[in-house]
Structures are given as structure tokens and as C-alpha cells.
């Protein structure tokens, strides 16, 4: 009777599982009908897109500006998608412009900023072309390939954004004269992409259940040491200034924001470290706002603190505390995906079932009891959970390296914790 029940469950004609575990397996899967389901869905999407275009047209009619005048110096505002190229062209002024002597009868020439701009613009193209021949790993999931994903975040989004931003550097310097230094904007080409790379890498490793400790502690400690050292350097260089005490307080606060996640993740258990990171960052931010308001109210003027101290050094004293808090959080939090995320890689080749020793001795096995399959479908009702020997034979043969016994042990720990809460009763 039990055999029939289990058999019925395993061999059910559920969508996605037409035939299970045998020579009769077929991969024919029912899909959605082309007409009308898919057609209508596509039509709705197309109509939405067209409607959006009409709406934008009615909302903002594209301007015509004034006719071209070759006698005037042109007013340069490229469209948003080529801003990165213009930003790189502007950045090219930091590169040398050497005179190259002519060789083999070719004329001499000069490598100008225009050439460097052209050269730098082509670097993204080269990266995109060689990408599939460089990254030849198997992993498709973003969290399982943290290096690639972190590079994508830092390069495709952050670096492209700041390269585009640099194309309007003159407008930014005009609108926010407090920056008044082009080098601050140039630093954005290197600092934020690097920091976002590290933060994304740490967060994605966490998401993919990879070993974490040193990947979290080393960047956080480095951020703390750099912030502390740089703050000390700033305080030593500004000399005796009437606002020295205030500046020291701000820098101390920012350094404290970097030390809290670093020390917490190095010396506390993960849960407590996460709590310490979040609470300390919230507390210190509020304290900072209060301090700033007090300073703004009582002090003759905040100009010196911002213009001379904070703004030129924002790539360290402002960026690193933010980096520390974010990295500490994403490196310590419990990943929102559970073990299901890892089990979902299974494409049901059935090798685990073939090697499983439990199915060879248990009576239920004759009826097709499959431990992995049943726990994956959450239909175990306790049988596979407690009959599994955790021998790891299934993980050994799994072509996708799914650690099934880890999952079983985790589930058992969960159940035991629950029964302890219930007063040690059997569930």
C-alpha cells in the first residue's frame, strides 16, 4: 500500500515531470500555446512600447536648436550614449602627447589627445570582443561567478557612469564651485569602480554560499587603515586652525564607521557582527547629522571643513565609510536564497538515485523512493530526511556538484531546533 502511494507520487503526471527515472523517459514537455497566449502577450508588449513612444512624443517634442554655423565654435553636448567617449576624450589630457619620429620612410606624427580618446573609446569594444574567449568557465549564475559579475557591475555601470559624468566636468565645476578641482572628478574614474568591484565581489560570494571570512575581513580592515591613516595625515597637515576640533570630530566619526564593521566581522559571530554593523552605521550616521547641524549652527561657517578637508579627500574619507558599511552588510547578511537555490541546478539526470545505498535496502525504494527528488520537491514527509545516511555518494557523482547531504543536515538541524523549541517533542 505504501509502495503504491509513493509510486503514485513519484510517477505522477505533474507538469515538468511526465516520466521519471527509467528508460521510458521522454523530454517532450507541454508548453504554452503559440496562439493565442504567446501572440497576445507579445502584442500587448508591443502596444505598450508604441504607446510609450507616443506618450514621450506628446510630452517632450524633440527640439530643433539653431542651424549650424561653421564660423562659430560649436556647442558640444553629445547624446547620452556617447557621453562616455567624450568623457574619455577629456580624460586623455592627463596622458602624454609624444612626438613619434618617422621610421621606414613614413612621416613623423604626434599622438594627440584626440588619438588617446579614440584609443580609450575602443577599449570597451576590445573587452567585449575577447570576453567569451577569456571567460570560459561553466558557471552561468551571477552569484556563482562573482568575479565576472563584480567586474560587470564596476565596469558596465559604475565606470561607464563616471566616464559619462566626466564629459560634463565643466558644468559640474560651474554648478558646484565647492568642488572646484578637476582632480576630484578624475578620481571618480578609479575609486568608485574599484570599491564597487570589491563590494559586489564580497556580496556575490556571500550569495553563492562561498567561504567568506578573509574575503570580508581583509577589505574592511584595509578600508579602516586607509581611512584612519588618511585622517591622521589630514589633521597633521592643516595645522592649528580654529575649526580643528570640529574637523577632528568629523574625521573620527567617519573612521569609526569603518572600524565598526571591520572589528565586528573579524571577532564576532556572523549574526552578532551583522547586527553590530547595521546598528553602528545607523547610530554613527545620526550622530554625524547631529554633529553637522551643531557645527553649522555654532561655527562661523562650514566652508573650511568642506572645501579644504572633506571635498578634495572624498575618495577616501567619504567613500570608504560607505564602502565599509555596504561591504560589511552584504558580506554578513543571510543570503535571501536558501539551499533551494543550489538544489535548483539539478537537471535530474538520476545519477544520485543510482548510487544511493538507502534505496537498495529500504522497502520503499522498490517503489521508486528517491531521496534527492523527494526532498527537492518538498514531498519528503520525513522519510528521506531521516533515512539518508549523509554518505555523500550522491554529491560524489553529481555532475553539478550539488551538496545534497549538506542540505539534509541543514534541514535536520532546522527540525531539531524546532522540536527543542516545542519542548523536545517528536514532530
Amino acid at each position, binding site marked *: 500500500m505504501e509502495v503504491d502511494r509513493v509510486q503514485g507520487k513519484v510517477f505522477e503526471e505533474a507538469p515538468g515531470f511526465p516520466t521519471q527515472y527509467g528508460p521510458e523517459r521522454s523530454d517532450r514537455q507541454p508548453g504554452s500555446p503559440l496562439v493565442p497566449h504567446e501572440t497576445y502577450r507579445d502584442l500587448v508588449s508591443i502596444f505598450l512600447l508604441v504607446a510609450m513612444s507616443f506618450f514621450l512624443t506628446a510630452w517632450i517634442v524633440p527640439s530643433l536648436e539653431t542651424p549650424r554655423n*561653421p564660423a562659430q565654435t*560649436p556647442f558640444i553636448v553629445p547624446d547620452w550614449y556617447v557621453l562616455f567617449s567624450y568623457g574619455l576624450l577629456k580624460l586623455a589630457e592627463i596622458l602624454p602627447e609624444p612626438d613619434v619620429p618617422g621610421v621606414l620612410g613614413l612621416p613623423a606624427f604626434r599622438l594627440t589627445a584626440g588619438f588617446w580618446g579614440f584609443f580609450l573609446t575602443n577599449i570597451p569594444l576590445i573587452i567585449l570582443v575577447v570576453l567569451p574567449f577569456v571567460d570560459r568557465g561553466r558557471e552561468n549564475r551571477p552569484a556563482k561567478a562573482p568575479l565576472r559579475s563584480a567586474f560587470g557591475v564596476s565596469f558596465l555601470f559604475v565606470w561607464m557612469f563616471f566616464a559619462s559624468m566626466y564629459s560634463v566636468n565643466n558644468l559640474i565645476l560651474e554648478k558646484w564651485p565647492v568642488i572646484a578641482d578637476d582632480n576630484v572628478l578624475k578620481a571618480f574614474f578609479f575609486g568608485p569602480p574599484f570599491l564597487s568591484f570589491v563590494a559586489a565581489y564580497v556580496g556575490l560570494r556571500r550569495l553563492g554560499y562561498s567561504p567568506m571570512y578573509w574575503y570580508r575581513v581583509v577589505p574592511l580592515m584595509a578600508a579602516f587603515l586607509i581611512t584612519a591613516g588618511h585622517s591622521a595625515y589630514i589633521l597633521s597637515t592643516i595645522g592649528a586652525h580654529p575649526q580643528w576640533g570640529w574637523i577632528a570630530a568629523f574625521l573620527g566619526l567617519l573612521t569609526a564607521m569603518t572600524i565598526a564593521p571591520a572589528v565586528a566581522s573579524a571577532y564576532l559571530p556572523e549574526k552578532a557582527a551583522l547586527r553590530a554593523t547595521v546598528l553602528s552605521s545607523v547610530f554613527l550616521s545620526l550622530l554625524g547629522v547631529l554633529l553637522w547641524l551643531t557645527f553649522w549652527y555654532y561655527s562661523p561657517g562650514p566652508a573650511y571643513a568642506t572645501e579644504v578637508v572633506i571635498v578634495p579627500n572624498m575618495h577616501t574619507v567619504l567613500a570608504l565609510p560607505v564602502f565599509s558599511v555596504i561591504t560589511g552588510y552584504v558580506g554578513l547578511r543571510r543570503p535571501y536564497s536558501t539551499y533551494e537555490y543550489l538544489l535548483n541546478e539539478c537537471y535530474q539526470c538520476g545519477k544520485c538515485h543510482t548510487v544511493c545505498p538507502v534505496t537498495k535496502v529500504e522497502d520503499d525504494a522498490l517503489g521508486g523512493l528517491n531521496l534527492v527528488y523527494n526532498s527537492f520537491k518538498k514531498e519528503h514527509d520525513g522519510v528521506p530526511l531521516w533515512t539518508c545516511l549523509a554518505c555523500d555518494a550522491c554529491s560524489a557523482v553529481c555532475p553539478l556538484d550539488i551538496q545534497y547531504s549538506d542540505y539534509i543536515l541543514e534541514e535536520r538541524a532546522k527540525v531539531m531546533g524546532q522540536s527543542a523549541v516545542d519542548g523536545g517533542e517528536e514532530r
Partner: protein
Amino acid sequence: MTLRQSLWNLFREANRTLFGWVKDRFPTAPWADMTRKLIETDQRQVPRSHAEKYELKTIWYWYPLYCLGGISFVAFILLTITGIVLGFYYVPDGRVSYLSTGKLTNPAYDSMIYIMNTVPFGFVVRGLHHWSAHIMIAAVFLHMCRVYFTGAYKKPRELNWLIGVLLLFLTLGFGYTGYLLPANNLSDGAATIGINMAKSVPYVGDLQAQLVFGGTDISTTNYVLRMYWWHVFILPFISVGLMLLHMALVWLQGVAEPH
């Protein structure tokens, strides 16, 4: 033989003579038959994706991003239609001349004024062309990001990735050449940067500028005509072919999902 019969015979003979001539040379019956069978085949279905097949629960958030390539294609179709309409009225000539009032103008800019002010719904067509272009470029960029983050460029899809990179840069080329067509002050700014960048490459710079912009000096070059040639003939010719190839390869190789 009644009149009715003879009329019928006449009709039949005429039919055979007229259509039989065509049918003898171009037998359409097998094709019609195949088409009918194709339409009537029951259970025509879009195959289930990997995630649907195995009831995966945790990667649903990638799914809306899988329509970005299609969105860019739909935007391209919209651009083609509106572009054909604009092509009836646009004059690709950016050579400046002075009006009797002393104001500066050029035929391309004049034709844009005509499209915006006189052509019925001309401003709507131009607005659609403008905004669809922005939508297409944004969709293409996000589509590339999706392919990158889901690792969809890996074996066996390297060739399709390379075609996609080419298409991305062709799309940017569409945007840039289109930006230069109204022959206004912004076009001049963008053309100046483009010509200077093209010229600055050693040895081939002037040749490159001559080929792409039709000249090496912004004040004397009628770059609008050359941009029109790129925008309306060359780029569409290359991109349509590559787009079809891109989609054919997706069809043959299947959609890559993160699993």
C-alpha cells in the same frame, strides 16, 4: 451543347490558359499545401524554458530582462516605418547659405522645419523616431548587460555574442549619424569631435575622416550628406542582415538561462 456549358468550357479554357501558364512554371500547390499543414498542425506551442520545465523558484527576477532584445527589435521596426516617412521630406544637404534677412540656414535644417511645422503629423513622426531611437539604444545596452550577467555568451554562443557586439556598435552608429542629420549647432559639435578623433589616428586618420565624414575640415565638409548615406543605406543594410542572423542563431541554439 447548351450555352451554359459552352460558357463554362470557355471559362475553363481561359483559366487554364492564363493560370496554367504560371502554374506550369511555378508550381504553387506543394507550397500552399505545406503552409496549410503548418498552420493546421495542432498543439503548436512555444517550448517550455528550463526554469518552467524543472519548476525552479528562485531565478524568476531575471525573466522580465529576457524581453529586452525583442523590445529593441520592435523599436527598430518602429524606427524603420517612421524613418521611411521622414525620408520623403528630408533633404540631406548641410551647406550653409544666408537668407535675405541675413540669417544663416541650410537645406537640411529647412526641411526639418518643414517636417515639424507643415507636414501633417510631421512632428509626431519625428518625435516617434527620436524617442524610439533612445528606447532602442537603452534596450540594446540593457540586453547586453543581461547577456553578460547571465553568462549567456559562453559556449556555444560565442559567435552570437560577437554579432551582438557588432549590433551594439551599429546601433550607436545609427544614433550618432542620426544626431548629425538635422544640421543644427549640436550636430556641428558632435561632428567636430568625430572628425577630430578620426583624424588623430596616425597614417590612416585623414583617409578615415574622408571615408566616414566626407572631409577633414568641419567648416567646408558637407558631412550631412555622408551621414545620410550611412544612416539610410549602409547601416540598415548591414544591421538588418546581422539582426536576422542574430535571431536565427537564438532560434537554433535556444535561449540561455541561468541554471
